[in-house]
């Protein structure tokens, strides 16, 4: 029965989304238009995240490791 309550909860969340964005008041064809626009936007966002942000984050992490690595080397030389 956990599946049923989860399904009810998801449905309730969807109802809240409908109320906040006023798609509760729209005619069916307007709803189709609105949801497809929203889905396209969200899809574009995910695609951009996957393509660009991953590359940026990995570059940033590389720089960080280099910086930390240099720090370690410098500290070791001083101790010597």
């Amino acid at each position: 029965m956990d599946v049923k309550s989860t399904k009810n909860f998801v449905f309730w969340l969807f109802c809240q989304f409908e109320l906040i964005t006023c798609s509760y008041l729209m005619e069916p064809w307007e709803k189709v238009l609105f949801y497809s626009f929203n889905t396209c936007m969200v899809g574009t966002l995910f695609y951009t995240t996957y393509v660009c942000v991953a590359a940026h984050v990995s570059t940033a992490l590389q720089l960080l490791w280099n910086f930390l690595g240099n720090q370690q080397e410098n500290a070791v030389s001083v101790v010597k």
Partner: protein
Amino acid sequence: INHIVHNGGLYKRPFNEAFEETPMLVAVLTYVGYGVLTLFGYLRDFMRHWKIEKCQNATEREEQKDFVPLYQDFENFYNRNLYMRIRDSWNRPICSVPGAKVDMMERVSHDYNWTFTYTGRVIKDIINMGSYNYLGFAQNTGACQEAAAKVLSQYGAGVCSTRQEMGNLDKHEELEKLVARFLGVESAMAYGMGFATNSMNIPALVGKGCLILSDELNHASLVLGARLSGATIRIFKHNNMQSLEKLLKDAIVHGQPRTRRPWKKILILVEGIYSMEGSIVRLPEVIALKKKYKSYLYLDEAHSIGALGPSGRGVVEYFGLNPEDVDVMMGTFTKSFGAAGGYIGGKKELIDYLRTYSHSAVYATSMSPPVVEQIITSIKCIMGEDGTTIGEARVQQLAENTRYFRRRLKEMGFIIYGNEDSPVVPLMLYMPAKIGAFGREMLKRNIGVVVVGFPATPIIESRARFCLSAAHTKEMLDTALKEINEVGDLLQLKYSRRRLVPLLDRPFDETTYEETED
């Protein structure tokens, strides 16, 4: 949260009024909702203009398309695109007496609220939380109804004349003496319509060269009367005595704008209970200011007569003040007395002047005799002169219902505006989709409520307004509260952050932006 200390001991009882601030997230989401609806409104208008969609609203004729456009302003845009979507919550036809329970005819719409058809079914016993039936006199049985029926068979329904010509019946004289006795004033005059009482009598009292100081949230009838009179109108912030005092000081010191002559008259227009906010006017302070600056006070007790005060005599009795301090006491018979019409009470000279010079007395048809008899019987019932204690019991029942209902709603976590003692309870909804959803869900659960949106309230502060009645029993209120709780959970309406925000009581200056401090 009482302000007895700040006001020099003018209040004999605590004055608990609160207007909780809109939560920031809710305000942002409301604007998002309105933004989406506006975009779709533009889309639909575009489609209607290019004939992709059938145009069902009013437009100009083909020959007039080159003239100045009639329907391009915001009001008409709002009407076509936003109001039409939720129109089924208003103008619902009822088919029984609007008492504590009411019958309603069921309507459906197959083209998204452009037209309605009746299914033929009557929804019975809907709990009525929307009628202004404060003392429960909207009845089709009982002493009032029998007396009205007797008078109907004696006098008929129509009067066929104005008060000044042949329409002054002995019933009207009896009513006016009774109203004057009820209010504690010297003399009173009754009119056929409450709105017309305000809009037709204020022009008779003030004219050019006079100053009207009117509250921000005054009713349309007061605004119309003030504008028709031709006097200068200045607005003070809602129930804010510092703002009113500043305006009075400026008026006395500077006089009329160009010639600097003193004003002929200064009239302060306030209402007893403001029906959209549920707030009660700060009458002791207004009277103190009026006496200090020698101005006149016009008090519109449309919602507070019969509903406030230990014996139902209105806001003056609620604060324990002298009725002679208020120069013009106006009220209506529509709300607590179950009839129709309005009255003005005051000194004898004032009322005699109004009998001759008021537009309503000269041109409007006088009140219908059965209606007059309903008012006479209900006032006698409230005063206890018919030998029973029904009136007193009803006034007390209304006060109990008010306190109970407001307390329970606040405990549930809704944002409720207004004073603790006012029987008008506004529950904030904010988002446009929730206005329509609330009205429909409550009707599904057999409770009739009135929801209010843009032109009557600021655009983000839409609300549902409950009007309590002495005819509501505790079981009805409990049923209603249970359903409101359910609908509140379903629609996520419990916005209150439960912080008790004290009202601002420091001196008003131009740097004061917020009404409340956090």
